[in-house]
């Protein structure tokens, strides 16, 4: 525990120091502290993954009382994610914020909140005390709120930040309610006692309450509305950190309470699964409809949270039906995908940030041709795209594969309903995968390939090396985890085993020799991936050999006999996604139909569309509007008339006096 606390302390200290130094020195100060701190944290986490659980107990005054900090295998996984993701974000921020220096904006406390966000997440995963947990949890929300508010002169940013803070507050209150009920049951604020205090019948509603609270942070549909607003509003290092790491804290919370509660009834598993499938499918569908690169990525976070949730759902089913394989593979897949998503989503957001700084635009249809102007960014972004689509040989595939295996084991649950659910989950996940391909071929094809579609894209320039460095590192991780997944599997398996209530030994036995023998499968996949890379290399060699003597001409793109294709004639992102979006149009409320072209030779025609989520269009907005309207209807209460005011008091007095007289004797 000592290196861990030391690391956290060091982090916090650098944050405080960053407040005191000048604008230009901040990034250096923070990085100087963050590097050793990350090292300490990773060391502490690795120690726990391979050795005993670390714990520390302190006693504080009322109302906290005894509080313990525990670093167990589950926490350790998250610690690694936070530490690595945090460091990447901080390095990237060093480059990203450079372009804001000297623009009249004060960066001020931005670094401090960046560090505070990392620190609060580091605390969330080890605290085992209800009140302290909530405090750390809210600090996390607050610090990220201030980070989102960075470009606060923009109206959208203000709206997003407000929405974010309020949504988080609502989430907090679900958690408060759940924690309060649990603490009343347990007679203690110690999270470890919460689990034991809850019996079977009440565990499900309590779990749902917790799921609501944590699910808002994680961004499950329909609790996701803040996500597509906040992520684009925040600067990219923040979006990367929030989407890559912070929303995982919601997952952590859910997993932590699954661990505390032990086996939950199957309904909980089915419910989580249903929400997750919805999130995954709708998340990707909504993503396809987006024009803004970062909004699109935000919806993909919803999708991936859904995928992680599918794993959790299967893990819960496995526990409920006492099927070792399903439980382990479900939780294992969820954890693995959680790690992977933190890597490639960070990479993608950083890439989007590089594009934004390079072109000053995030609208996909205004980009284009960036691959030749921002070569490194383009290459790294491609890695992220492939990884998020779950395509070989990157890490996204491996975790989805583990999830598929878990679902296929779902047939062993010995329950027709579970079987049907498993098959549909497999199908849904496949649908999500193929739609992700649609989405990211759109993004990559339109934004990075082809010719520049606007003057801004024409003037694009490569990003600062401080931004490319963390992106490269994350891309390398994508590839590394994809090629050698078996290396990290034991740590994940340990956490998954703990979650599903098996001893580490039993899980190891299961993974090594049991029906799944996951490690050996992953080894085969690893070999196949190497073969894939080898084949590509080989074919490249063959191609070079074949063309050695031949001419390779360069010409304009073939325009089917018409005049050469100009940049404005390229297929747009909207058109690319159009066929599919028309198919799913019932899921949207469309605004702005294209204007009809009437004349024979129309001079100007304009068409713009904006798709709004059904939830926003038919639930959130009407509710908020109704609330406002309802409030307006009551403003006569405070009319300014003094006599009216006095009447209120007298009437109330009359009612109470009647009450007293009525209940007298």
């Amino acid at each position, binding site marked *: 525990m000592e290196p861990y606390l030391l690391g956290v302390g060091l982090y916090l200290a650098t944050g405080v120091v960053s407040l005191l130094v000048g604008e230009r020195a901040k990034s250096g100060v923070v990085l100087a502290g963050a590097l050793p701190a990350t090292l300490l944290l990773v060391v502490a986490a690795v120690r726990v993954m391979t050795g005993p659980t670390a714990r520390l107990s302190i006693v504080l005054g009322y109302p906290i009382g005894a509080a313990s900090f525990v670093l167990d295998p589950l926490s350790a996984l998250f610690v690694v994610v936070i530490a690595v993701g945090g460091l990447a974000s901080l390095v990237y921020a060093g480059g990203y914020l450079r372009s804001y220096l000297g623009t009249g904006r004060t960066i001020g406390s931005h670094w401090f909140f960046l560090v505070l966000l990392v620190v609060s997440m580091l605390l969330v995963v080890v605290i085992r005390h209800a009140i302290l947990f909530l405090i750390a949890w809210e600090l996390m929300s607050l610090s990220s709120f201030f980070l989102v508010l960075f470009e606060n002169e923009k109206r959208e940013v203000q709206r997003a930040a407000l929405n974010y803070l309020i949504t988080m507050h609502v989430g907090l209150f679900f958690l408060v309610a759940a924690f309060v009920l649990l603490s009343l049951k347990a007679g203690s604020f110690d999270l470890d006692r919460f689990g034991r205090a809850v019996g079977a019948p009440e565990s499900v509603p309590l779990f749902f309450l917790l799921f609501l609270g944590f699910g808002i942070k994680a961004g499950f549909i329909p609790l996701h509305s803040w996500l597509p607003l906040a992520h684009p509003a925040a600067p990219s290092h923040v979006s990367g950190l929030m989407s890559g790491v912070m929303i995982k804290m919601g997952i952590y919370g859910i997993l932590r309470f699954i661990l505390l509660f032990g086996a939950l009834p199957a309904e909980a598993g089915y419910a989580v699964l249903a929400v997750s499938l919805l999130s995954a499918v709708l998340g990707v569908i909504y993503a396809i409809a987006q024009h803004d690169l970062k909004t699109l990525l935000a919806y993909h976070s919803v999708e991936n949270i859904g995928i992680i949730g599918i794993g959790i759902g299967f893990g819960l089913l496995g526990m409920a039906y006492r099927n070792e394989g399903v439980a382990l593979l479900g939780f294992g897949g969820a954890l693995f995908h959680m790690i992977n998503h933190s890597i490639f989503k960070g990479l993608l957001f950083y890439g989007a940030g590089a594009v934004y700084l390079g072109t000053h635009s995030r609208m996909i249809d205004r980009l284009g041709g960036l691959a030749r102007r921002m070569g490194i960014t383009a290459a790294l972004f491609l890695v992220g795209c492939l990884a998020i689509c779950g395509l070989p040989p990157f890490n996204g595939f491996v975790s989805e594969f583990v999830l598929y295996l878990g679902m296929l084991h779902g047939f062993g649950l010995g329950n027709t309903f579970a079987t049907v659910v498993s098959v549909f989950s497999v199908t849904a996940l496949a649908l999500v995968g193929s739609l992700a391909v649609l989405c990211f071929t759109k993004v990559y094809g339109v934004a990075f390939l082809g010719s520049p579609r606007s003057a801004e894209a024409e003037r694009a320039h490569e990003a600062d090396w401080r931004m490319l460095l963390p992106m490269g590192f994350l891309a390398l991780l994508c590839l590394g985890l994809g090629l050698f997944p078996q290396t990290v599997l034991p740590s994940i398996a340990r956490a998954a085993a703990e979650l599903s209530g098996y001893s580490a030994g039993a899980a190891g036995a299961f993974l090594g020799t049991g029906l799944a023998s996951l490690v050996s499968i992953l080894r085969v996949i690893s070999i196949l991936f190497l073969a894939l890379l080898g084949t590509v290399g080989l074919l490249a060699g063959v191609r070079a050999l074949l063309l050695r003597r031949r001419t390779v001409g360069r010409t304009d793109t073939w325009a089917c006999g018409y005049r050469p294709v100009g940049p404005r004639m390229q297929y747009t992102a909207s058109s690319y996604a159009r066929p599919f979006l028309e198919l799913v149009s019932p899921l949207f409320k469309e605004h702005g139909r294209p204007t009809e072209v009437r004349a024979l030779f129309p001079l100007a025609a304009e068409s713009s569309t904006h798709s709004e989520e059904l939830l926003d269009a038919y639930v959130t907005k009407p509710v908020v509007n109704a609330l406002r309207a309802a409030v307006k209807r009551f*403003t006569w209460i*405070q*009319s*300014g008339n003094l*006599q009216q005011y*006095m009447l209120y008091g*007298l009437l109330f007095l009359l009612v109470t006096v009647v009450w007293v007289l009525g209940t007298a004797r």
Partner: protein
Amino acid sequence: MIKLVDVVIILFGISLLNVTVSGRLEVSLKILSLQGFLLFVAAVASLPAADLLGLIVVAVETLVFKTAVIPWYLRKVIRENGLYRESEPRISNFYSLVAGSALFLFGLIAAYWAAGSLSPIRPLHFGVSISTILVGIFIILNRKQLISHIVGYIILENGIFLLSLAAASVLPIVVELGIALDIFVGVFIFGLLVKQIRSVFQEQHVDRLTELKG
């Protein structure tokens, strides 16, 4: 057996009815003076014998403040601001009288009820004080001139004073004086504010004071 005090109390109650209908402010002030004096009598009657200090305090409270100083001060305010009549009450004079009588009746019912069930308090005091309090509130709610509100407030206070006479509970003299001082200062500030409002708003209607809302 009818005691002097009871007569005084009933007189006091009847004086209320006059206030509810009088459109002329100066008449209201005269009734206030009268009420102050009646209260003095009632209070002296309920004092234990040979309590000189108590007598002085009561005299200061009722004779000095309620009978003399406050009506005089309010008259001064009225004259300085040129207000003599209540412009238009929300409810016409006739119905005001009906309402006032109803309130008075309600007080008498309360007195009857109090006489029946609640031993330690003086029923007539109790009843009339209740109706006085209600009439005070009624005046405040019914009139629009701020001066009338002050009058209503003083009547309310008179009612409370009478209510405190209903039981033989004794407040320390310090407290009694404090209360009297509070009420006097309160009325004094009311007067000052009315003057200021007059100079800013040109009117002292309560309807003018509705800028602050929402």
